[in-house]
């Protein structure tokens, strides 16, 4: 067996590390440039193609928000019921409203909604975009004189952000209702008292943080899969790889965003 010179091994390792670092840095730069490109398109807003843009945006809201309701509402109810049940036992019915707000509205609601949307829509966007790239459908749009970023990517960004804002709100309402259901069954607290507790616990920061989280999650869940999809080359086998990487990246970014916003507002 040949023994390699330790200096060569270290040099190879450092080289690999350096290449990975440059690749990673370059990926994030490309992703930021792509995000900037779509966001800038939003403010340009030329008259051309506007009606089709509305149509595609509405379709995206339908696919991401309306079609996800059957899963978001039951999940929110289950979370509401199980969490309040546990905390009801733990805290002896004291500050139940506050617990609902802290756990469900501030933290769990937005991130759980983001997870559901990543599983349903982020993967779908990467697959759709990837296949369109491989099958030269983006090229077909270009041959029609249509900018794919404007007609394909921009409506998905607007639709996704709108859908996330709506879903986070619906999740919060549904989980509070679920929480109330358990309060109604297993405690002596009246509905009025419970809602008063929730109302008192809710601060303006909660609304702002929830909305900000929904906004940033929406941007992330639209841009990362679109970028991954557009990056697919000519091979169909690149699509599942891009889908998997896109979903993991979305998940990671959403957790980081959630942590940063909670840190900034509640520290």
């Amino acid at each position, binding site marked *: 067996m040949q023994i390699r010179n330790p200096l060569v091994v270290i040099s190879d390792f450092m080289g690999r590390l350096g290449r990975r670092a440059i690749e990673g840095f370059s990926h994030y730069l490309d992703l930021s440039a792509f995000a900037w490109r779509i966001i800038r398109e939003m403010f340009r807003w030329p*008259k051309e193609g506007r*009606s*089709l843009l509305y*149509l595609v945006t509405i379709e995206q809201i339908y696919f991401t928000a309306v079609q996800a309701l059957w899963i978001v509402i039951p999940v929110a109810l289950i979370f509401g019921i199980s969490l309040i049940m546990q905390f009801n036992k733990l805290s002896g019915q004291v500050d139940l409203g506050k617990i609902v707000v802290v756990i469900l509205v501030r933290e769990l609601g937005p991130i759980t909604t983001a997870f559901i949307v990543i599983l349903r829509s982020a993967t779908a966007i990467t697959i759709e975009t990837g*296949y369109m790239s491989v099958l030269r459908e983006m090229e*077909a749009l*270009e*041959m*029609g*004189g249509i900018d794919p970023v404007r007609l394909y990517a921009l409506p998905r960004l607007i639709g996704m952000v709108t859908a996330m804002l709506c879903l986070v709100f619906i999740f919060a309402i549904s989980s509070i209702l679920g929480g109330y259901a358990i309060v109604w069954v297993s405690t002596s607290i009246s509905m009025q008292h419970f809602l008063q507790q929730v109302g008192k616990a809710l601060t303006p920061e909660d609304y702002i943080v929830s909305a900000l989280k929904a906004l940033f999650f929406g941007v992330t869940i639209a841009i990362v899969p679109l970028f991954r999809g557009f990056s697919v080359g000519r091979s169909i086998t690149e699509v599942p790889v891009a889908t998997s990487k896109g979903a993991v990246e979305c998940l990671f970014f959403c957790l980081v965003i959630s942590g940063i916003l909670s840190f900034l507002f509640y520290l």
Partner: protein
Amino acid sequence: MALKLIEIEGYSLAPIGRGRGLRNFDCTISEGDVIYIEGDRFDDTHLFLRALAALEKPLEGVFYYRGEALDFSDYRKLLFYKRKVGYISSDSTLLSNRTIGENIMWQRHYLEGRGSLKVADEVIYLCRLFGIEDKLDLRPSQVFRDEVRAAIIIRELLKGAEILFVEPAGEMLSRVHYESAVQLTKEYLSKKVTAVFSYSSEPFIREAATKMVRIVEGKLEVIALK
């Protein structure tokens, strides 16, 4: 003297597939030109057609459209040109997440700012010619390949393009649809429009041709016929 629509100078293109690429060629396409291309490799003639449609970024050289150099550094700067050319080729596609009718009407609605993707009456006539008028509400994956090709031809003809780039329809269409395509092509040529055909064995195209482009071993030669 006819107006020069396309002037290509010192153009070189990297190979695709099993082709050899194209090296340092010049080519001019004027208004009313009918050109047919033949060559030793399909990949090279296909590459030339893609280059004419501004779908391939050159390694070197300049592409002038109506005297204005195209800027390949940003695809958005090529969109105005792509709107003006029709591209019917083996790699032309429809959007798979839209119906056949929507695909045909997509560009028109985008440019005219209409929200509804309703199929216009003149489109129905063309669809009837190709026998796809009852399939407009189906997606490309739900119809035969042949019918997808027919929809692509209709879409590109409806663009009202200044120049049409066509790859042989014979291999892409069944006999019935092929005859419809030939009829449309004849109508198109009778209007004295500019067209570039690749590998066409149809005698009426060779008769109408004003130039021939021969591509051998990656070298391109333009031969004036009329």
